[in-house]
């Protein structure tokens, strides 16, 4: 593994990799996951893939469709587009949305490297230079100073880090912008207030908004699909209604409680917007909300408008225009229904995108009150309308803090008050709250699985979190004690599912992952059978 990298290396070596991921060189995991040879290997690219794909960074490909220039003219075109994008990022007209935060982060970094120690990816990689939060952002700064600012080329020559902008630089930067979870732990640790995660996001934005490059799971099969058919899952409105109708019937039968989902009820108090992925991947989650809302007598509804039944907003990860389009769509749907407020589903980036980032895009009558699922559930649990028996949840439970709900939104305690009340064996991870580690699925990674990207996610991005989970259940390591990771976010749950599957943690340690609402329903006195099914997950 090549660990010692210079900033200028980004432009050198054309198609050669800058580094290689070797699982035995990553930080060790606790037993029984400490034997690398007993784990599935890291999926390497085949010779054919190496020939066909752009794979000049770390042997991992997150976007197979990244175009390769056929000749010098094409390379020149990409370089010109990149420089044009840099200029637009620094212009008020094209980037008023983040101009001030971006410039303050570009111009006033003290290069003290304090932020590196906060990055879970850098730590998990055992300090691989490529994954420093400062590596990509310093290159970005150098390119901005060289290609956008007056006298830049001369200053670049004097700086000792004159980076040539060529195809190699651009393609590596693209891929490198998808080696950061955007969890903003680095920003939190910066004494100067510099935000290297924002720089990463702006880099992604440049690629998306100027060159049209973005992971297909986030763009083509993400926001574009959501705006066109209703959801990145591909579920059209009639399919969403059918699926939930089927789930209503199935859970009515298995739980013995009448489950029904309300659709398109005009004038309802609450429009609940789930992540549609939950309907497919974690159906207990939307069903739990139906059970709880009905039991508490809440006036609520889902929407079957295109986009109205899926709260995800992948634009947060890579593109301001798509972010705005999705957020405005959600607000328009709520306005049409005439609801009093919108309640976020258990989805971290939905919270961040809709409650704060898009807040200044929702002006006039689109500014409908928006409530977090955490305060909504806390109010419901402690309202006295539903009777609970916490002994039903008498198994080890730990809480994963979704970065976008906790560090990025400051919602820390409501979910803890619920767990402390309903889960006798609740324990924290270390660190937790606003200091938590990302699950490794942040920044859009949980839905990205092109070529061998999933291997990188489970080996590197999710490593610190997996280590934390195992350590949280220290003392009860075996599978005979069933354990529950409460992750109130679809993306986090999907990443945990990948981690638990990859490491065989369900079989070796008896760990499953689910949401918060399921734990609440499981503790309901009216629930005659356990709601949480340990075997099915």
């Amino acid at each position, binding site marked *: 593994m090549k660990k*010692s*990298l210079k900033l200028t290396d980004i432009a050198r070596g054309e198609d050669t990799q800058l580094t290689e991921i070797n699982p035995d060189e990553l930080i060790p995991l606790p037993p029984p996951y400490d034997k690398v040879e007993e784990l599935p290997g890291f999926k390497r690219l085949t010779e054919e893939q190496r020939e066909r794909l752009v794979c000049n960074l770390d042997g991992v490909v997150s976007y197979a469709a990244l175009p390769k220039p056929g000749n010098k003219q094409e390379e020149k075109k990409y370089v010109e587009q990149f420089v044009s994008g840099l200029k637009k990022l620094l212009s008020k*007209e*094209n980037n*008023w*949305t*983040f*101009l*001030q*935060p971006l410039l*303050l982060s570009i111009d*006033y970094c*003290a*290069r*003290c*490297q*304090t932020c590196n120690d906060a990055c879970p990816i850098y730590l998990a990689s055992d300090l691989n230079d490529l994954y420093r939060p400062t590596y990509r952002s310093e290159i970005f700064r150098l390119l901005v100073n060289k290609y956008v600012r007056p006298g830049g080329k001369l200053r670049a020559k004097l*700086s*000792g*880090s004159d980076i040539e902008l060529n195809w190699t630089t651009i393609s590596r930067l693209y891929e490198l912008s998808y080696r950061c979870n955007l969890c*903003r732990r680095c*920003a*939190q640790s910066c*004494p*100067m*207030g*510099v*935000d290297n995660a924002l720089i990463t996001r702006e880099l992604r934005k440049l690629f*998306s*908004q*100027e*060159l*049209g490059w973005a992971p297909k799971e986030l*763009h083509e099969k993400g926001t*574009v699909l959501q705006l*066109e058919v209703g959801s990145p899952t591909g579920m*059209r409105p009639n399919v969403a209604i059918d699926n939930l109708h089927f789930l209503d019937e199935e859970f009515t039968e298995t739980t013995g409680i009448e489950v029904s989902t309300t659709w398109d009820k005009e004038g309802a108090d609450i429009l609940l917007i789930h992540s549609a992925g939950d309907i497919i991947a974690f159906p207990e989650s939307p069903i739990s909300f139906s059970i709880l809302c009905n039991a508490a007598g809440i006036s609520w509804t889902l929407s*079957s408008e*295109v986009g109205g039944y899926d709260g995800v907003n992948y634009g947060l990860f890579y593109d301001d*225009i798509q972010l*705005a*389009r999705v957020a*405005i769509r959600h607000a*328009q749907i709520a306005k049409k229904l005439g609801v009093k407020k919108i309640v976020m589903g258990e989805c971290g980036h939905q919270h961040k995108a809709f*409650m*704060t*980032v898009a*807040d*200044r*895009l929702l*002006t006039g009558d689109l500014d409908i*009150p928006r409530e977090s699922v*955490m*305060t909504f559930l806390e109010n419901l649990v402690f309202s006295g309308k539903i009777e609970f028996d916490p002994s039903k949840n008498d198994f080890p439970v730990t809480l994963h803090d979704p970065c976008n709900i*906790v560090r990025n*939104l*400051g*919602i*820390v305690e409501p979910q803890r008050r619920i767990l402390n009340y309903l889960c006798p064996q609740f324990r924290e991870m270390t660190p937790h709250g*606003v200091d938590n580690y990302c699950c490794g699925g942040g920044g859009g990674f949980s839905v990205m699985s092109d070529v061998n990207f999933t291997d990188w996610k489970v080996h590197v991005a999710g490593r610190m979190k997996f280590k934390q989970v195992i350590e949280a259940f220290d003392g009860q390591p075996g599978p005979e004690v069933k354990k529950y990771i409460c992750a109130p976010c679809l993306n986090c749950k999907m990443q945990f599912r990948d981690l638990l599957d990859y490491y065989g943690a369900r079989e070796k340690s008896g760990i499953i992952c689910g949401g918060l609402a399921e734990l609440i329903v499981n503790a309901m006195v009216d629930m005659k059978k356990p709601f949480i099914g340990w075997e099915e997950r």
Partner: protein
Amino acid sequence: MSFFLIALTYFAYVFIVVMYAVKVVKIVRMPVHLRWELYPVIHEPKSDYGSSYYEDFEQWKKNRRKTLRKGIFFLLRENFCFSEYFKRNRGYWLVLFPWHIGFILIVIFHIVCFFGALVMVAGVSVSAESTFILGRTFYYLILLTGVISFVTGSIGSIGLLIKRLSDKDLRAFTTPQNYFNYLFTLVIFLSGLYAWYFVDPTFSEYRGFWKGLITLSPVPVDYAAAAHIILFALFLIYLPFTRSLHYITKFFAYLWIRWNDAPKDKKMVEELNGLLDQPVSWSAPHIPSGRTWAEIASEKTSDEEKP
């Protein structure tokens, strides 16, 4: 020479003030941005564990009381103590702290020299033997701030040079300009130390120079003191071309971005409406060029009808 020193000093002070003001105005006049706060947000009552007002059920129905005092106090303390560095990067703090203390004290030294000179113009003698308490106070303040600044600044400059050269992680991110900065500041602090130790142990020449500066009556100073005066003036002229403004920009980065959890108000909405009416010229296929932000973001797609 004496006139040159006075002219250079005046120019240096005017230059740095104007340059800093231009930079700050540029930052202040940037358009309102989307919210991008990061917790803990210091003015929140429950900021100890990072909580926000979003933890309150139907928070929009509640009155919020926000105060800037806590944040400003935190940032001012940060600018003097560097406690975030102390907490997160102790090795770096050990050299960064004396370097910055050197700067802070050299600024205070010059401010005290200025007011000391005013006092002298008013007829109060500034010396250890002055019959006026004010005169003795200024004397010792000038002496202490000057000497401590030169010593700590020199230690910090050398320390940062060694730290940046010996730490491979820091070395990879250190530019020639960074090294030049440390050497330049080392020369400035050492020149001050030399002038004080060998030529002007009570700073009487320096006080005389400042009195001459205010009364526009140049007085001759020793070459060592003149060298320090010239170097410091050049340093002031050079500062706007470095990242030194981070002492001030840190306030914007924290108060306007990291801790900016303010919902929209009427004035902001007016500005936002103007920004949303601006045409966008991004080139990717999914962004129709030339249309405004608002048009692009709220456009309808063909496949929107319900089944």
